């Protein structure tokens, strides 16, 4: 069994107990998951300053994980601290943002990312630029809802995502990437109502960390 640490870089419950169940659904069944959140993290990550607030805690958790785990997932599309966590842990560290955008490029030429606040358009562009996939990003936007508001009315959240997804397709996207791991609960409904592949980023991160662990690449 692979031992995977999932760091939820927030101090609020998020999906709570459902998170473990969901991770197991995403997995190929050969992974054991531990979940840790941050004692002094942000309540949600939707601003640049939230991402900064989360980073130190993520790095500390990653440092402690060395020796006890085979790989780490940071459970937020903004990938807070992922880069530093690699150096701190010496383990494969996967972010839902990077892994979902990379996997999207295997099932379509261009992808679109639909996230939360209106700052998402520019923020995702910066993420794509850092990753090196800008030429494959056709569209990015937010639905103007905060992370903690996503669960208020699933129907409405789903409709807002679908409306933005249609714009993404018009802009040349062939694959839709959900730009927040808080969208887990509406991912299936969105997928069923679109004719193109929809990637839920936490599931992409789980499958990617499993792939990286299986590759057993020594990380000096």
């Amino acid at each position, binding site marked *: 069994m692979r031992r995977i640490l999932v760091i939820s870089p927030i101090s609020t419950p998020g999906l709570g107990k459902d998170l473990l169940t969901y991770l197991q659904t*995403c997995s*190929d*069944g*050969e992974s054991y998951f531990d979940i840790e959140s941050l004692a002094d993290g942000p309540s949600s990550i939707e601003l640049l300053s939230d991402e900064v607030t989360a980073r130190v805690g993520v790095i500390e958790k990653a440092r402690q994980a060395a020796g006890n785990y085979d790989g780490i997932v940071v459970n937020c599309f903004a990938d807070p601290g992922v880069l530093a966590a*690699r150096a701190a842990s010496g383990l*494969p*560290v*996967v972010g839902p943002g*990077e*892994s979902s955008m*990379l*996997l999207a*490029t*295997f*099932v*379509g*030429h*261009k992808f679109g990312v639909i996230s939360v606040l209106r700052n998402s358009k520019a923020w995702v562009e910066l993420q794509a630029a850092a*990753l*090196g*996939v*800008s*030429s*494959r990003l056709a569209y990015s936007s937010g639905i103007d809802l905060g992370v903690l508001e996503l669960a208020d009315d699933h129907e409405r959240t789903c409709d807002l995502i679908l409306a933005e997804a249609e714009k993404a*397709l018009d802009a*040349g*996207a*062939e*694959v839709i990437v959900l730009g927040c791991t808080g969208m887990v609960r509406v991912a299936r409904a969105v997928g069923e109502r679109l*004719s*193109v*592949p929809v*990637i839920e980023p936490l*599931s*992409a991160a789980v*499958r*990617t960390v*499993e*792939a*990286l662990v*299986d*590759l*057993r*690449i*020594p*990380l*000096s």
Partner: protein
Amino acid sequence: MKILVINPVGTDRWDRGDQEYLSRQAPPTDVIDVLSLPDGPLSVETPVAEARAERGVLELVGRVGSGYDSIMVNCFAEPGVMASREIVDVPVVGPCQASLAVASQLGERFCIVSPRSDHGNMVLRRARVLGFEARIAASEGIGIPVLDLDAHKETTVRAIAEAARRGLDRGADVVILGCTGMACVIDEVRKALPVPVVEPMAAGFAVARALAGLKLRTSRQGLYIKAPLSKQTGGHAQ
């Protein structure tokens, strides 16, 4: 999970070894079929060989591809990968793109080490198509043809390590082997280098597994139009 690995060459000399190698990184419940082409080049090192290999890959994918959860074309030149996405709905993965995706999550800039000295520019061309050129620090050849890679393994390892170090001097922090035939020396190469080394056959297979696990299908929205039945056997008129 059922994965098809296509060796896009007209020889089965690598099929069994590759099957054993990939089985070691998958649960025993996986079915991994490694098939080569009934007719094809012995190796894919020139544009001409690549064109021949592509026809064979399309034909094989059309014949058996839809019976799998995903497909990996086991050659760094990725012959027929993009075109095969028109033939089947399941994901089709190439080892070059997969290696770039894996390396992108291990480090910042990459050195790709290819067999022949004149491969460097072909690899850079592929990286441009895939949109990854900004991540490439160096693309180096070692002057050993594919069919000779396992002839004198010590020579091959030394040549790969030397080329990789030139890449490290130019800022690379991850090395990608630019040929799936280099899997035969991966352990020795890793011992000789101070940075992570991505072996493309394993990377292609791992990404193919990940996509199959996510139950993703190729999008029909833009580039990859589904080929009509009459063209799904690789373009031969029936």
